[in-house]
Structure formats: C-alpha cells, structure tokens
C-alpha cells in the first residue's frame, strides 16, 4: 500500500471513531486501526450509564454536551432518558450526597433532592432504607453493546478506512510521518491520534512518550430478563453502585468494583472478592433482585491519569501526535470531546478548552 493517510487513529472505540468522523468531515484522509473489533473495548462493555450525577464538577459542561450528543444518536445506540436517582443509605452518605450534588448543581446539572415519598412513588421496588436521594431528569443510559454496530456504520458512511484485528506492535517515525506496523501490515500516516484507552500508555511508549496512565478494571454484571423493577437509573452516593433495567427486562449492575488483570494481559477478569460485595450492594438496594439470576459478569478497562482529568491535546515535542483518552465519565463525554479533538487537529478553535497531555499531573 502506497497510500499515505493524513491521520491514523489508533483505537476504534467511541473516542477514536468520534474523532475520526470529525476529521474526515474536515477533509482529512483518515484510517482507524483497532486491535479487536470496532467498539468492542471499553466502549462496548461498559454499563452505559449516562448520569450527570456521577460526573466531575469541572467536567460538567462537557458532560451536558455529551448528553446532547447521545440524545441525537438516539435509538441507534439504545439511548433512553429515564431520569436517575442517587441513593444514600446512612448519614455519612447523605452528607456526602448533599455536599457533592450541591456543587454539581452549581456546575449546571439539573439535580434536585427528593423526598422519601417521591422516591417510593417512582421506584417502589427500592429498599425502604434510603436516608437521602437526589434526582436528575437528564440522566439515562445507552446500550454500549450497540457501539460497534453504530460506529462501524458511521465510519463507513464517512468514507473512513479501518482495519480491525490490527494490533500495533511498532511505530516508526520517518520523513512521511509515521509507519505503524502490526507485524503483518504497515500503515503510513502523517499524523497520529492515540485514542486507545487502557492501551494508551504502551502505544505512547512506542513513540518515546511516557504518559502517567493507570488502568482501572471495572466490573459489570447483567441479570436474566426480570419483571419491571426499575424505571430510572440508580446510583449510589459513593459512586459504587449503578443499576438500570433495560427495555428487555435485564438489569445491569455496575459501580466500578475492581476486577483483575491489565490491558497488556488482555480482557481482564472479574474477581470474587469484589464481585460479591458489588452484587450484595445491588441486592441491598433492590431486594427483589435476590431471586433473579446473574447471567454474565465481565470487566472493562478505564484509563486515568493521577489528576483524573482527560488527556486531550497535542503531545509535547511531537508536532503531529495527539492523544485523547483518560476521560473520567468517558462514555458520556466521549461523543462530544472527540469532536473537540477533531476540531483541534483540523486547526480550528474547539468550542471548549481541551486538556494538555503534557501538563503537570501533581
């Protein structure tokens, strides 16, 4: 292949695909290189929660825009705006909830505190042990399983080239730009956008960049189809429980409990030590879950840097290398921040500021 792409996007998840679509619209000849299948990494295995109540205060404007993006993608990504409750089961959690939600409200999220009576009326199946609860009418979820199907279609429509099962093992810089090799195949591109989530650190190291990235390994479980138990998405004051019942009746249980494994080792695995308390907490909040069967539990990697803010910008001393990832709440914010990233690479002024990957993380 003698084609020289304007940009190669490494990572075919929501971030990479979102940015690629923007770049292609801006006239760049774009290729996406994905080690697995499009949209099947963290984008395809996370719990799909779209909640402003669990977003960081400083990222709230991005999350609000992210919600708009998801709403526009609509049914094709299984978007549902259900509203969401965050629960506190003791005084300590109630205090935490009040303090945090007040700040998030000030940052622009449409959050209110609700009475016991309202909660019971709206979610009668929840345990009557809730001490305090907050509500956000903008919250909801999307079906992460559909990420691959959705983005595969969109990138094809945008005329973007993509290679799946392309695991980058080497990147060489030359006069044309970058030669990216999977061992079997080589792709040449003038610019690089690294959008490979948990695998970012290793890929960045291939071009001599040391990014302080850690990978969390979040656990998610799903039940068999159950009678209607929940109408809204449910969160927990500590952030350690998310629950939603999808249209087909299955209940998704998440909350960021840590499984085992590293991105280098592959997909990672659930760990009994954290899976059991995760499920116990779910059962505590929603007692009717106790007779329902768990059908599958799995893990997905969430990359982060020490200050838990995104990496979104140009690498220091690397004119043509950009990174996008480590976004806390990345599923929600991804479709928006990837557009900003695309604009930045195209030389346009992004609508909101990006996050310099070469900043001091302390």
């Amino acid at each position, binding site marked *: 292949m003698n084609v020289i792409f304007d940009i190669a996007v490494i990572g075919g998840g929501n971030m990479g695909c979102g940015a690629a679509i923007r770049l292609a619209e801006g006239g760049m000849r774009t290729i996406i290189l994905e080690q*697995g*299948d*499009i*949209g*099947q990494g963290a984008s*395809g295995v996370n719990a799909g929660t779209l909640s402003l109540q*669990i977003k*960081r*205060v400083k990222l709230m404007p991005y999350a609000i825009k992210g919600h708009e993006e998801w709403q526009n993608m609509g049914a094709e990504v299984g978007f549902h705006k259900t509203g969401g409750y965050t629960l506190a*089961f*003791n005084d300590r959690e109630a205090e*935490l909830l009040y303090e*945090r939600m007040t*700040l998030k409200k000030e940052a622009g999220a449409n959050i209110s505190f609700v009475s016991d009576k309202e909660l019971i009326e709206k979610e009668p199946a929840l345990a009557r*042990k809730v001490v305090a609860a907050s509500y956000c009418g903008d919250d909801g979820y999307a079906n992460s*399983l*559909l*990420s*691959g*199907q959705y983005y*595969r*279609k969109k990138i*094809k429509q945008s005329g973007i080239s993509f290679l*799946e*099962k392309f695991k980058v093992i080497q990147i060489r810089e030359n006069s044309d730009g970058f030669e990216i090799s999977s061992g079997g195949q080589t792709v040449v591109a003038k610019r690089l956008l690294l959008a490979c989530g948990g695998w970012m650190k290793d890929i960045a190291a291939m071009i001599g960049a040391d990014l302080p990235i850690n990978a969390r390994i979040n656990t998610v479980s799903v039940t*068999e189809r159950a009678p209607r138990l929940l109408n809204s998405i449910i969160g927990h*004051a*500590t*952030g*350690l429980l998310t629950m939603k019942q999808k249209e087909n009746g299955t209940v998704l249980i998440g909350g*960021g409990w*840590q499984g*085992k494994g590293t991105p280098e080792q592959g*997909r990672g*695995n*659930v*760990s*009994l030590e954290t*899976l*059991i*308390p995760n*499920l*116990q*907490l*779910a*059962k*505590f909040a929603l007692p009717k*879950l*106790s*007779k*329902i*069967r*768990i*059908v*599958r*539990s*799995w893990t997905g990697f969430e990359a982060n840097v020490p200050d*838990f803010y995104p990496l979104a910008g140009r690498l220091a001393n690397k004119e043509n290398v950009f990174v996008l990832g480590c976004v*806390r709440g990345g599923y929600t914010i991804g479709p928006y921040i990837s557009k900003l990233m695309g604009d930045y690479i195209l030389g346009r002024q992004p609508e909101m500021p990006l996050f310099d990957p070469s900043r001091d993380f302390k």
Partner: protein
Amino acid sequence: MYDVIVLGAGPAGANAALEAADNGLKTLLLDEQKVAGGQVWRAKSKSILKAPSTEASEKGDELRTKINQSAIEVKFNSRVWHIEKQDDDTWLMASDAEQLTAKALIIATGSQERIIPTQGWTLPGVIGLGGATVLFKEHMMVPGRRTVVAGNGPLVFLVASEIIRLKGTVAAVVSLNNRIDWLKALPSMLSNPSLAWQGFKWIFKLYKMRVPVFWQHGINKIEGKEKVEGVTVIKVDHNWHKSDQAEQYIPAESVCYGHGLMPAIEATRLAGADHHYDELLGGWVPTIDKYGRTSVSNLYACGDNAGILGVSVAPMRGRMAALAVLEDLTGKKHNKKDLKIFDKAKKIGLAATALSIPRSGLQSFITKDTEVCRCECISRREIEHEIKTGALSPNAVKSGTRCGMGPCGGRYCSESLALITQHISKKTRSEIGLSTARSPLRPVALDDISNEIDYDKLPIPGVSPL
C-alpha cells in the same frame, strides 16, 4: 486448601480423582449431578432401580463404589460458577455461596451436544440425542410413541437402538453419514472389536426391525402446529448441503436430533487456557500436552472436554492428568508406559468422532427464518445482516444482535453462528474464533451466591474524585 480439585465426576474426572487420592493428594471431586458417573455411566433414578442393569450402569456402580472406598472428598449437586487464578498461583472457585481453593485444578467437564437448527427445531417433542440418552439411562423412558432419530455420528444409531430396546417405535433413522463413512471408520474401530461390533450391532438391529434408514439424508423441516406431527427428509450432498431432490414426509410424534458431541470448554476457557480448533477432536479444545497440562500453570484437562475420544480412553486420560498433577506438585515421576496404551486407544475414539464432524453444508438447513439463538429469539436473517455489515467476530455479532446473550450463554448457538459466519466470510473456524469467556459458568441467583450483608461492613473503597 486442597491439593487438587477435579471438576466433573464422569469416567475421566472420577478416575483422575481416584489416582490423585491413591497417591496421597488431598482431593476434592465436584459434579453438578447427584452422583458420579457423568453422562455415559449415569446412575438409574430411584424409580427404576429394580430394572435390569446395563453395561453403563454396572460400570458406573463399580466407579461409585471405588469412590466411596477412597479418600476422595466429594461434593455433588455442586454448581461451580466461577474459576479464578489467585496471585499465589493457586485456584479459587465458587460453588454457589461456597468458596473453594486448590493448588491444582483438573477440568473434566466432558462433552456437550451440537445441534444445528433446521425449520421447526424448537417445537415441543424435539430433543437432542444426548438428552435422549439421559432419558434412557436415568428413567428408562422413550421420548414419544413414534420417533424419528436424525443427525450424524454413532449416537444416532445408539439412540435408535435404545428406543427399540425400551419398546418404543422408531419411525425412521435419518443419517447424514452414508454407509461409506461408516465403512471408512471400520479399520480404526476394529482395533477395538467389541466397540466396532457394538456400532454395527445397532445398525443390524434396526434393519432386523425393518426400521427405514435414510442414509445421507437430513431433516429439512420438523412439521407440526403445537407439537411435532412429522418430518420431511431430504437427500444431502457429500458436504451435507441440502439437495434439490424431492422431500419425503414421515409422520412422527417426537424427534431425537443432533450433530455429534463437542468438548465442553467453558471451564478451561474461563480459567484462561489457550484453545485451538481441531475438527478431528470435535471442535475447539484446550491446547494440552499428552498428560493434559494446559497452557496455564496448575491447570489440567482430561476426558472429552479435552477432545472427544469417548469413554474407552476417558479413565486413562483422567489417571494421566492426575499423575501430571502429582509430578508437578511433588516432583514424583511416574511410569510413562501409559502413553503407548493411550495412543492406541485414541485411534478408536478418533474414528467415532470422524463420523460426528459436522460438514459445512449443514448450514443450508438453517433457513433465513430459522431461530438460531433460542434464548433471545434471533433468526439467521438477523445474524446474516450483522455479518454482512461488517461484524466478523462472534463478539461483534453477539453485541449487535444479542445472539448468545441469554441464559444459555451461547452454549447452543455459538456453533451455528460460526457455521453461518464461515459460510459468508469464507474464513476458517480458527480465524473466526470464539466469543470471550465470562463468569458465571451457569446462571446463578443472587441469593444463591451471596449471603445477606451487614451494610456497614461492606468493603467500600474510597469515594470517586469529585
């Protein structure tokens, strides 16, 4: 902490446990059934205890007596749903709410049925060939008054002859294999004359009873409104693709139907072992050495889940895996002469499996409207659409369509999905691969796996950054 846990108490697993315990290893044997014996040496249920014993029930009784007299600890009715390698290289498993640990783990989960759908296969009155053998062995029941037995491999003839033994009526036998397939299997089978004889005895019995045998035919459609009323059969080509010859209708009340056995590999996959595709061994198998060592340390596989070789070699495979564990844990060397006997016995197993290897044309029986994934009601049409729009791996198709996401975890449809993908993409089975293995191995209710909690004692880590 056990020295070794054996998962599965069929001929391979039970013998692995016996060998391990006889050599002084602290051994735990687990099975989801009530007693040892597996599918093949299944015990008779209480209601038929007085019925005449069969070779299988006698062998099973003998095995069960040996286990009782050994130092093996047993747990039956056990539902292992999670397997996890711990940081110190030992194994952690969850069986309902109980957690078990061991230095070594032998997986002997046996085989599972392969059933490739045809029109009407979800009607009441249709059961798998393997499911039929459970009815015979445990309850001495036949599936219905007039039964059509169909599919490929030796099981078709075993099931038909058992129905006759139990005074049922076989309306017809419909075999995808032709007579030449059977003759080809003969030379290897003859190295164990009693087994070969048994296979041919089944066939003779059917001819004697004047049961129509349709060689090189498949069931095109199972007919009926609310239950099975009959089947139409159709000739197939050498790849088992449906021919355009005229169909024949056979009235029937039940259908026993299947396409051979596949290794049950969920447990070895969940434990992280490397697997590869080997059609001679029945499909995807864990990659093992001659003794059953997998690619993961302290993980072993024996019996049909490590490649379908049948019951004649299963006990030996079990014992060899146990000896490997003994060597790896204690450094005790063992006698290698077992290997020669094993190699000879392996040939017979391979010959029987050869009759069971599904051929690519089988996919032609899955019409566009045929439901492939029963749990989620996904038809071939939906799967094809997903593949044709670029979902080329089982994970991708699963995500887009929900095929294989129901309670059975894709156990029944993954094979059909692979056949359809292969037909469209022309990729090999190895290239297509498998979807990711995940816990639980079987669906488990939250109450069965987690006790009530004291909320304030939940190990809640620090809260997320504000």
